[in-house]
């Protein structure tokens, strides 16, 4: 068993036990919960390296991300690819998502990558993020969008290419590609926060 600690938040007991069976040989599972309130409390207490969090459990996975993304890497679990909720979770600080049809090996890999700070970024999410920046650019043209290079990276991720392959295509290192993706996530996080602040100011919400 490795030293990485993992928390699992999902309201389906069968699913939790399946995930546990997959992860137990590789990680320390420090806790489980079936709702957002318990998850927030327990993640804050145990401070796991990675939290696997169902998007649609009672209380909402988004609330857990908002409360705990500062200190824990979040990988969202979802049954359907690329919902808007996923984008909201990523904008709130989640490092990526996996669909629930993911294989054991892929799930283990996703947790490892998330713990190392590497975005778990499926193609469908890249397309959603592209669309989001397009929306932001048309809503607020003066705001800082993504750079041309970042857009190139996103398109290649959306095409299903690995960071290494993208690096080869763009003549940069895989590490640089990865940092581009992290920057994109950071910008998404930031613009969302600015947008919320602006909305609150415009509508006089305290």
């Amino acid at each position, binding site marked *: 068993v490795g030293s990485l600690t993992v928390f699992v938040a999902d309201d389906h007991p069968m699913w939790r036990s399946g995930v546990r069976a997959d992860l137990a040989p590789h990680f320390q599972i420090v806790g489980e919960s079936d709702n957002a309130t318990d998850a927030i409390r327990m993640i804050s207490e145990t401070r796991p390296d990675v939290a696997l969090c169902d998007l649609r459990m009672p209380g909402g996975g988004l609330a857990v991300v908002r409360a705990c993304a500062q200190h824990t890497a979040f990988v969202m679990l979802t049954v359907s690819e690329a919902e808007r909720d996923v984008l909201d979770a990523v904008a709130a600080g989640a490092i990526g998502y996996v669909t629930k049809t993911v294989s054991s090996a892929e799930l283990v890999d996703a947790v490892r990558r998330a713990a190392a700070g590497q975005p778990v970024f499926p193609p469908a999410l890249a397309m959603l993020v592209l669309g989001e920046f397009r929306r932001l650019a048309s809503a607020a043209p003066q705001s800082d969008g993504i750079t041309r290079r970042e857009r190139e990276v996103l398109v290649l991720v959306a*095409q299903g290419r690995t960071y290494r*392959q993208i690096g080869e295509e763009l003549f940069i290192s895989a590490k640089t590609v990865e940092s581009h993706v992290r920057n994109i996530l950071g910008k998404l996080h930031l613009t969302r926060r600015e947008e919320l602040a602006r909305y609150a100011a415009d509508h006089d919400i305290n």
Partner: protein
Amino acid sequence: MALPLGTAAIDGLRPGDRVLLRALVGLRWVGLAPIALTFWLRRDTLDRPILAVLLAVVVSAFTVWVALTAQSRPARLVEPPVVLCELTLSGAVLAADGWILGFDHTFDPPALGAIWSLAAVLTAGVAFGPVLGAVAGASVASFRLLGALAPVVEHRDPRFADVFVVDDARLLPALSMIALFTVVGLGVGYLSRLQRSAEHQLAEARAHDEAVRAREEVARTLHDGVLQTLALVQRQSPDPELARLAAQTDRDLRRYLAGTANAASPRLKDALRVACDTFTAHFGITPQVVVDDLLDNMSPTTIDALAAATGEALANIGKHANASHIVVYAGRTDPRGTIVTINDDGVGFDPSHTPSDRGIVKSVRKRMHDVGGTVDIRSTPHDGSQVRLWVP
């Protein structure tokens, strides 16, 4: 708001029209007053008193009938026979001006039954629309001129006997009334149509919203339950046949939820999904389909060509690549054009040892060439492959 629309469906009358028809009942009652008052004040000098009484009775009776019908069956008021009957009666009221009060009165403002007749023109506008509303207005107002044909009655007041001359000053009020009635018929008809189409759009939008909401509700329920279970079966079933079945059901459900059964406007996304489903049925791997929502308005020929070429590229991957992940992507290219890529993580091949005019590659090239597009195939041994289809 849902209630009046619901009842509108029963009697075929829009809520706006019903409100207007009720208001017109009030206008008719008001319109009765000048008729009755004039007859009473000039009771001693009327040319044809019996006609006056008859007209007053008929107009009052009709007004009462309209008031009752507006309560019980408002839709009857806009039925063509009823409207024509009312228009004729209104015309008669205006013509009677000259026959009862004296033919010279034909050209004196205001007309005896102007207000009452206006109600009929307004109803015609609602019932028949702007053009026929205008015609009805002009016709009813023109009836007033018939009053000039009334023969002079012997016992009438000698003061008026020989002063009658038709000149501009006398003709103008009659003509302006015709113009007014025409404009009123036109305007009300137009406004009624406008309101009707607005109400129609509102009802349609509401029905659409409800359908979307119902579908979202179904989707949410299925996501929380059925799709979770199907995902679980796919991951954990020791029986590969059961897992395959779960994957198939999963796909069918998702396709239903996405509402792809839209044959009227074929979309690239749907066509690519169909190609991928066919592939999955044969090879058991589910490609991810990632399509830019901005892609729109492509010709069916181009969509067919891209989908068919994608299908062939996928089949090729299925036979030779031994891949575990496949992504089909469709997006825009700068400055114009659409690109579809089929990316796999299989064994790959050495492009220099694969003649570009052989077999599968050749037929894909042919398909794309037919729609003015290009094909580019890239691969490195042991590092997957990428097929890029581009169309202008």
